[in-house]
Each structure stands twice: as C-alpha cells, then as structure tokens.
C-alpha cells in the first residue's frame, strides 16, 4: 500500500502461555508520519510496541524497519537497531538512581561514548525543547511531579534525534493543560525532526492532536485504519463506540 514504509508489520502473533494477545497484526507506517493506535485496555497495545522495539520476541510474523527484518535478531543486532528508536514508556521508566540530566543523556554517555560535559550540554538542550528548565538538571526523578517526569522521559527519547519515536500513553494521568502541552511537544518533535512516530493512547483528544493516521486494535488485530480526520465518520461500529466512549456497542467490556 505504502511505497516505502519506514516500519512494516505483517501477520504478527504473540501469546503469553494460553493467552493470545496479538493475533495477526498487519500495518505499514510511512516515513515522517505519526500513527496513533487506539484500543481498549489490555488489547495488546503496549505488547505491540515492545515487539517492535525488540523487548519482546514475537512468536510469528515479521517486523521490518527500513526494509530490514528485525524478528529473530540477537541482542547486539537489536542494540544497533535501537539506535534509531526513542521511546517514552507508559510509566516513565526513569532511572531513579541517576539525576535528571544523566537520565536524559543516558544513551549518549553509555552507548555513544560522548564525554560527560558534552552530553550534559546536549541533555540540557533537549530539556529546553520540552520546556524543562535547566535548574532541574541535578535533581532526581522522585523530586519531580508526574507531568515533569513525562517531560524528562520525552527529553530522553528525543535527545539523539532518533528516526522513529514511540509514545506509550503520553498523556495518561496528567491534567488537561499539561496533557495539551505534551501533545504539542510530541507534534512538534515529529514535525521538526521529521521523525516517524507511533503513539498509543486512550485519550481521543490527544489522538486527534498527535495523529496523521489512526488505527484501532481489537482482539489482537487491526480492525480499522484511516486518516485522523476520518475517525468520526469511520462507519465502523467498533471505532464509533470507542470514540464516543459508550458502553453500548459491539465491544463488550464486561464479558469474556
């Protein structure tokens, strides 16, 4: 469908024991576009991201990044591919034994062999891009509010200007104003860096703001995909139910 997809996923399966989470995910993402994946809790959105990132090993199927197969690579090869990635984790996942700037600069100092002084400058630059004042540089993550921790996570994801960015629920747990600030920051990073982005969210306001395209995941498959502007006129009962946040519809939350 897309001529030169940045990321191309086909027939991806992943189960945990008896529990089948991903059951044949297929989706392509064009370079420089922002895709938002929506879907109910526990449908496997985070698992999908972790498979693309190489943190979980897919059982079956293919994930190609720049046309290179990444399913089945060893740790060293994964590390090389990971240099293209920036990831904002659902819970932040900041290193609590390190200061804010050391968190932001972690890849620079530990994987890229950049000197501390230079890395600190780059870290403070990245912090400025997400509106985090430099005076926070020497604090610990535990000393910051949840919203500020999200921004540190964001700064850590973008500091090396990676080609592909992943955001796992960037706005959950934030007040609407901070959420809007984060949405704008994400949009800016994608537009300014020309990065390809995949984000996960439950928050439709955030999805509309971040996305060029939206895809919906249900029962381990992508059941709808379209331009962000079409999400309100999708004609798909599942998507309509999700977008309207209604308990009535084909998605049965309570049932098994």
């Amino acid at each position, binding site marked *: 469908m897309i001529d030169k997809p940045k990321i191309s996923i086909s027939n991806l399966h992943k189960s945990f024991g008896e529990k089948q989470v991903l059951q044949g995910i297929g989706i392509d993402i064009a370079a420089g576009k922002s895709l938002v994946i929506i879907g109910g809790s526990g449908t496997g959105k985070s698992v999908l991201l972790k498979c693309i*990132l190489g943190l979980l090993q897919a059982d079956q199927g293919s994930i190609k990044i720049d046309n290179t197969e990444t399913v089945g690579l060893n740790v060293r090869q994964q590390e090389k591919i990971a240099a293209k990635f920036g990831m904002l984790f*659902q819970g932040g996942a900041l290193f609590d034994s390190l200061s804010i700037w050391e968190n932001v600069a972690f890849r620079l100092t*530990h994987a890229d062999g950049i000197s501390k002084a230079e890395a600190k400058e780059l870290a403070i630059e990245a912090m400025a891009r997400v509106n985090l004042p430099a005076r926070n540089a020497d604090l610990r993550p535990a000393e910051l509010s949840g919203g500020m921790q999200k921004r540190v996570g964001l700064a850590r994801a973008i500091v090396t200007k990676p080609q592909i960015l992943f955001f796992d629920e960037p706005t959950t747990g934030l007040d609407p104003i901070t959420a809007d600030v984060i949405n704008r920051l994400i949009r800016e990073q994608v537009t300014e860096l020309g990065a390809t982005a995949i984000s996960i969210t439950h928050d439709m306001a955030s999805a509309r703001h971040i996305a060029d395209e939206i895809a919906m995941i249900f029962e381990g498959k992508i059941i709808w995909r379209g331009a962000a502007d079409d999400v309100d006129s999708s004609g798909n009962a599942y998507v309509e139910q999700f977008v309207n946040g209604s308990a009535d519809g084909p998605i049965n939350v309570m049932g098994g």
Partner: protein
Amino acid sequence: MNPFASIGRATLGFLTIIGRIIIFSGKCLMAMIRPPWFFGQIGRHIINIGYFSLPVVGLTALFTGAALALNIYTGGARFNAESFVPNIVGIGITRELGPVLASLMLAGRVSAAIAAEIGAMKVTEQIDALRTLSTDPFRYLFAPRIIAALITVPLLVLVADIIGIFGGYAVATQSLDFNGALYVRNTMNFITGWDVASGLIKATVFGFIIALMGCYHGYNSEQGAQGVGRATTNAVVSAAILIFAANYLLTTLFV
C-alpha cells in the same frame, strides 16, 4: 492423581530452573569478559557490597571466633587437649566458618539488596528502558555487581579470618588463662597458607553465587511489590542453599 506424573513434573520444573540459571550465568560471564566495562558501576558496587558490609561481617566473625574458642576448650578438656584451642580455632575459622558464615550474612544483606533493586527496575520498566537506550542490562547491571562481589567477598572473608581468630584470642586470654604471646605463636605456626587460600577460593565462589542469585531473581521478578518481595526472599534462600552445597563440594576437593 498419578504420583509418577507429579514427581516427573516437579523434576522437570527443577531442571528447567537449573537450565535457566546456567544460561543466565553464561550471559553474565560473557558480559564480564568482553568490553565495554562500566568501571564507574563496578566502583560503586565495590563500595556498596564491600565497604558497607564490613560491620556485619566483622561482628559475625568476632562472636563466632569467641564461641568457637569456648567450645573447643570445653571439648578439648575431655581429652586433656585444652592447649589445642588456638590451632583448631585457626583452622576452623580460615577453612570453614570465616567463608561460610561471612557469605551467609552477605547473602542476607547483598543478595537481597541486589534482587530488590533490580526487581524494582524490572517492574517499573527501567530494564526495558535500558535496552531501548542501546545498553545491555547484562553489561550495565549484572556484570558490575558480579565483578564487585568477586573482588570484595574474598577480601571481606580475609578480614573475617583475622577478626575471628582475634575473637578466639580475646576469649582465650581473658577468660581461659591462655598466654597471649604463646597463643599468637601457636596460631601462626600451625595455620598454613593453604588453609587461608582454600577459604578464600571458597569465598570467591560464594561471592559469585551471592551476586548471581540477586541478579537472577531480581531480573525474573514478577509484577508488583509482591513480586519484588518474593524475588528478594528467593534470592536469599537460594543463595544460602547454594553456598552450603558449594561449600560441601569444595571441601571434598580441598581436604
């Protein structure tokens, strides 16, 4: 219920765990021998594991040496062999009690701390974050802790040997009427280099076990505070049992 089936299942489960631990140690060893090394991390853990364990190890050795002297004196009196106190205290501490008791205390202190720290990192996705930052947790988290334990545990045991023998000396001279100079000379003449060295070899193996069990159980910790708690307990219990088992094996080699 078929009893053979359940025995079979338990055996398979046990073998699976052994296999996992062996693969895990293999990966740790590979990370230890190949660059890059994170020297800052190694230094940090040498201080954490070594320096901050000195009080625990020192007190354990002191009381053990003292109690050992009293028991050997009482036992020896039954054969008119009270004068062997310095010899037996020396050999008992250096070959057996110094390494084993110090390592057991370290299993409680160090394995638990490592498992709790790594388990918390696991459940808060910090280990996943490391990977996405192109840093291998085996290199950054596990190898430095194991290297630090390999260096510090033998040193701690050497300290325990000295303090343990001093504990025996203190009791013998203060309440058992031994002559201090004679006690020291007896100890020095009797203990061989191999007595001390074999204890330090044991200590090196125990150090590996202590750090490895902390890392392994932390890394395999399940979600939530409960998962981390269980990982911590498992780390201490399995480190202690492996120390006893390894001690027996090494002792059969060294006698």
